[in-house]
């Protein structure tokens, strides 16, 4: 049974179809890569799945529940959580405050007791602080916890963004270009984290431009071009697929070896 099932999803902006009749399935426990040239509709796919865009037609079913017209916060509460491509953190707050904010869904005590700071609310506040610090330690962020998020190095901000998404206790994590603009060493670190996330039982869906990341992490790859699904398969299959190579390079190669 598939964990996330997208059925003939279409999203139009005016006359332009950003997504046209896209269907895909995500299996539980896998790492699925979404690749495609610029403007292929990868980010639109993420935005539409997580409820930030309303699809013109099509269906999204997550974990047996239809989430097609659900608000983003409800989608996140169900365990389908995304990260962002450009701004990952609340800039003027410290790293710890960012993570504490992300623990919002874990609060069981309501708003009124929290404001009045009752005994149970206080106890919960402490336990969540401990959890947040533990999570930050796992992600290697302890030394940055009291620094303002905007002043952190770009790579650390990225990791903090992933840490915040993990704080919501997702079942399926959608990473939107997690390594864009990072150095080789930082990219290697992110790859390590992605494997770690999967080991913790979280399914991962990944939009990425860096082929090295895709080939090193993904079990399966889906290729988008002009809003439609071009191909689907294992990294090996995709790297040999002629239509994919044509979409990327603009011409067909006669004798292709392994992926570059």
């Amino acid at each position, binding site marked *: 049974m598939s964990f996330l099932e997208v059925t003939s999803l279409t999203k139009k902006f005016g006359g332009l179809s950003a997504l046209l009749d896209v269907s895909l399935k995500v299996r539980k426990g896998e790492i699925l890569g979404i690749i495609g040239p610029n403007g292929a509709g990868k980010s639109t796919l993420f935005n539409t799945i997580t409820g930030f865009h309303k699809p013109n037609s099509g269906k999204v079913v997550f974990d047996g529940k239809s989430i097609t017209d659900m608000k*983003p*916060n409800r989608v996140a509460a169900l365990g389908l959580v995304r990260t*962002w491509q450009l701004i*990952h953190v609340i800039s003027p*707050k410290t790293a710890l405050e960012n993570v504490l904010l992300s623990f919002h869904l874990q609060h069981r005590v309501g708003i009124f007791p929290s404001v009045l*700071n009752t005994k149970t609310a206080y106890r919960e506040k402490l336990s969540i602080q401990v959890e947040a610090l533990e999570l930050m330690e796992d992600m290697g962020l302890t030394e940055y916890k009291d620094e303002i998020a905007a002043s952190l190095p770009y790579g650390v901000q990225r990791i903090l963004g992933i840490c915040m*998404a993990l704080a919501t206790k997702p079942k399926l994590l959608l990473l939107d270009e997690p390594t864009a603009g990072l150095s080789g060493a930082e990219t290697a670190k992110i790859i390590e984290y992605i494997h770690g996330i999967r080991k913790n039982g979280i399914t991962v869906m990944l939009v990425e431009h860096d082929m090295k990341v895709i080939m090193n992490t993904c079990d399966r790859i889906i290729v988008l071009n002009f809003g439609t699904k071009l191909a689907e398969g294992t990294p090996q299959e995709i790297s040999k697929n002629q239509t994919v190579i044509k979409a990327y390079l603009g011409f067909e190669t006669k004798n292709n070896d392994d992926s570059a």
Partner: protein
Amino acid sequence: MQIPKKVFAVIVIGILLLLPQWIESLYILNLLIFVGLNIILASTNRLILRTGVWFMGHIAFYAIGAYVALLGTKYLGLNYWLVFPLSGMISGLVALLFGYATSRLSGIPFAILTVAFVEVVRLTIVKVASGRPVSCPAPDPILFFDFSQKDHYYYFVVILTIAIIYLLYLIENSRVARTINAIHENEPLTESLGINCIRYKIAIISFSCACAGLAGAVFAPYVTVVGHTSFNLNASIIILIYVVVGGIGSLWGPILGAMFLTILPELLPGRASMQNIIYAATVLASLFFLPGGLVSLPETIRKKRFVTALQLLKQKKTKTPKNIKK
């Protein structure tokens, strides 16, 4: 740290409650009552502004509170102490509906809508009262208040103001403040963490407007004659001026702003005609010289005085290693 803070609060409250014993002048007492009401309006309006919506219609909810109190006691003959919480509830409810109706808007369209709402409420008042001011009966006596004298209103306003400031203080120190801040900074990111931003905004607007309504319910019997001119757009913008001049970044900002700007025009000659000019000048001055508001004054002075070449050097030394370290 904990105990001195509490002691300080007790001392301030004590002084505020004992003030009428020392001050004979009704004029000053009257001024202090308005300072209290303006503090409530400014600090609750700040709470709304902190969620990132441009809310300019606070005075409309003050008006609703005032008129609920007036109509309830005068025409329905209800006890004032029944009407008082009711006026807060009705203001909050109207704000709730207003928030739901406008939840898709943000930025300037929302600001225009709040401005329009002020006019809608004001014109409704004009229509209902056919443009004439209406007299409001004094509140029924309760406990040791009988509202025959001005200082009874003073005690009541002080208690109400302190209660609301305390609530705002609790909110400021809870996780709600963190969430509001995040909504202001980046709404999509906050939403993706599972936080219902619209519900938070509406709840904050509703709570703040309920407080404004309570303030209005005190205002109406206090001034005894209520007319639509107290609730025009100008009055709503003056509340924003309190917030801006005092400083939006801190809970104490609007309190300082409301105190400063309510008392300042009284100290200068020809106050009635000069009020708007004084406010305009203060806003410009504060935007130029104190963008952080009056609350940032001590810090600004400290910075101006002590930032020397040596300190700049020190800052450089402490900052660079962190940036190099990955």
